[in-house]
């Protein structure tokens, strides 16, 4: 009886995902093979040139850059997010939920308003330049903080850091304090306890958080649009620009299919590795948590 109830409760969201996620993706696949008429209407066909066009050597730096930016932002998010999440979860006491809410505060303010605030801080006549100028560190021209790769990475980090903090926070918060106590008895110092006990236990949080940062960062376009400069295009920008250029929709669809395809491949490989590992060891690695656990 209860099993049937549980079985039925699987239905709404899974059929929803089929209807409003899987089927639309199928349409994108169809459009990636389409041609267009004069005004850019997709005409369904079998036009593989949309894919071969992606092999243009001009796009190689764009692909590498996208991976590098997303990777750098993920690394920064771990470096900034782990200590912060750990501190709040373990030392935050009764107020830790309130502090976490404060960390989520940026989400309450519209995305564009936030980015504009960064421009007001980092822009040519921005607050940072004003301070530097007042201190006599720069001349009136100021420094251009906008338009560099580090600005884009900072922007990506800023946008996705709350994901990392929240994920790690949950992982640390759910740790049994007795495990740490046992670890301390076993390893002695706080550092070794951290590296041998806390870190491995919360590793799945880090991996899940990394995927939640890395993958959306791969598809991000707005950060570059606002904070980037020349030669900083990411794949997301190519897709959005293609979609808003008459006649290029199939090209954009082809990019989308390639991105999702490589993502699926990475996930499948991660899951295979996890399966092999699991035969030897009992602990589950994080990628499997995202596949099987987180989602």
């Amino acid at each position, binding site marked *: 009886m209860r099993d049937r109830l549980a*079985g039925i409760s699987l239905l709404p969201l899974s059929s929803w995902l089929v209807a409003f996620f899987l089927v639309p993706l199928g349409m994108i696949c169809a459009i990636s093979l389409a041609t267009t008429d004069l005004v850019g209407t997709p005409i369904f066909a079998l036009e593989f040139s949309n894919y071969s066009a992606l092999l243009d050597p001009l796009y190689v730096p764009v692909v590498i850059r996208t991976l590098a930016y997303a990777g750098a932002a993920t690394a920064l998010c771990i470096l900034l997010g782990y200590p912060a999440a750990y501190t709040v979860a373990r030392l935050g006491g009764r107020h830790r939920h309130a502090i976490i809410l404060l960390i989520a505060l940026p989400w309450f303010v519209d995305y564009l308003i936030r980015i504009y605030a960064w421009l007001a801080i980092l822009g040519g006549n921005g607050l940072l330049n004003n301070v530097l100028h007042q201190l006599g560190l720069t001349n009136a021209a100021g420094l251009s903080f906008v338009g560099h790769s580090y600005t884009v990475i900072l922007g990506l980090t800023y946008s996705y850091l709350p994901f990392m903090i929240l994920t790690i926070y949950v992982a640390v918060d759910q740790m049994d304090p007795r495990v740490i106590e046992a670890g301390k008895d076993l390893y002695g110092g706080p550092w070794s306890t951290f590296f041998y006990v806390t870190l491995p236990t919360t590793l799945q949080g880090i991996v899940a958080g990394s995927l939640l940062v890395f993958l959306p960062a791969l598809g991000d376009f707005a950060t570059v649009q606002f904070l980037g400069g020349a030669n900083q295009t990411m794949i997301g920008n190519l897709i959005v620009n293609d979609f808003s250029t008459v006649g290029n929709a199939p090209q954009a669809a082809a990019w989308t299919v390639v991105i999702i395809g490589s993502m699926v491949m990475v996930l499948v490989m991660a899951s295979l590795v996890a399966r092999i590992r699991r035969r030897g060891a009992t602990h589950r690695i994080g990628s499997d948590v995202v596949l099987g656990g987180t989602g």
Partner: protein
Amino acid sequence: MTATVESAESPAATHVDARPRSSRNLRHLALWAFTGVVGLFLLAPLLVVVLFSFNGIKSVSHLEGFSFHWYAKLWGNEVILRSLRQSLEISAVATAVGATIGTMLAFGLVRTRLGATRVVERLAALSILTPETAIAIALFYFFTVGLGLELSLLTVMVGHITFSGVFVMIVVRTRLLGVSEEVEEAALDLGAGPLTTIRLALLPQLWPAIAGASLFVFILSFDDFVTSYFTSGVGVTPLPVLIYGMVRLGVSPEINALGTSLMVVSILLSILAMSLIGWKRGRRS
């Protein structure tokens, strides 16, 4: 890090730490200082938004004087208020439906041993990991070219429910994995029907997770630009889309007043929500 023993509520608080207190305090101080810097990084742009919302002049890059002018202008701006209302409607529906079907799916995934659950899990994972732009554009073509629908408030809601449901499912599922089946089984043994069992034995334990996830999903939905943009149509301009449009035709400090108002309202709502759920539940289990 022995940091943990500091927590007053931790069962381990009674543990006697042989190490000198000062070195531990120093470590804690360093950790808090670092967290403070991270917090500043996250909140600095928000301070700028607040600051500029009281700007005396029409500029989003120079501060001069102090005024409530932009607030007055904001609250007289029907277009902004209408978008705000639409965004609230979208987020409310997306949260309510997403929370319901997300919780159901979590329950189904944890409490059945069907082979299909692996497939469903993977589908959900893929949906959350696919770039939002891709899904949004796909939905646009699906609704318009595929189904020939009129884009409306409803289509935006559909787009939002997809990610809302999956996010809620993830959070609730994690919580469910920590809830033993014994209580439910006991309730069933005592003759309670399955629905009653869920209502009385399971939901109370899941409630904090569902509420927390709902709050999170509401925020995500309210802040969403990409999906809102591609799935909105006649007479529907969700707030983030309107702001994007406003930016194109000259930024006005009004948007800073709007940002500040949103922040204040959300903080108040969150405090209200959290006090309803009960701060006490925040205690470590």
